[in-house]
């Protein structure tokens, strides 16, 4: 089911926290068409978000952060206690 960003992000986080073991999150990028598709599913529900805007990359980063945090640290993870990903990489670039 196709959603706009706010709905998609909310649904995605809800799903991964509810069923962490069954949820997978996919980022698909088509260079030739300049499109990006985000998908979250647990084999019962499926949410997608499609875009061709570069400004959505920042939102994707944030969602990546949430999803991977929940997936590696359990659903009770406190996102605020983790470092925000935006700060360091600029300095740390090799």
């Amino acid at each position, binding site marked *: 089911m196709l959603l706009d960003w706010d709905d998609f992000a909310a649904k995605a986080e809800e799903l991964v926290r509810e069923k962490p073991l069954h949820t997978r999150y*996919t980022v*698909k*990028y088509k*260079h030739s068409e300049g499109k990006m598709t985000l998908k979250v599913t647990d084999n019962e529900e499926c949410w997608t978000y499609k875009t061709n805007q570069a400004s959505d990359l920042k939102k994707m980063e944030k969602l990546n952060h949430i999803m*991977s945090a929940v997936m*590696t640290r359990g*659903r009770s993870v406190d996102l605020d206690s983790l470092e925000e990903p935006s700060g360091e990489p600029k300095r740390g670039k090799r």
Partner: protein
Amino acid sequence: MAVLEVNRFLTELAGLYEKCKEGTAGKAVTLTMKRSDLKPRTRRAKAKAKVEDRDKENSDDEYSCLVRAKHGKRKISTVVSAKDHLYFLNACNTICKAHMDALKRRDKKKKKKKAKK
């Protein structure tokens, strides 16, 4: 499918995006994240697990995140633990941002319009 070390995976991932730009092999690069306990499961165990899943999910065992990437026929995967998580995420985001440059930028459009005027 090869399970790679985190650093190796990141290098390969960048390679996949490069190839995607060149237009060889398939069209899209797919990056998938999935939580995993990495226990081998038989069919029977799976059926059992379904019943017990709720209890399992409540326990705070150490889980790792299985990350797969695919472009054409090339498939790679890695396992990210909680320890590596922030490092991987930063690197992954940097790679994604750097390579997804076919997306439209609003700023450029505006500038072009201004320039035309």
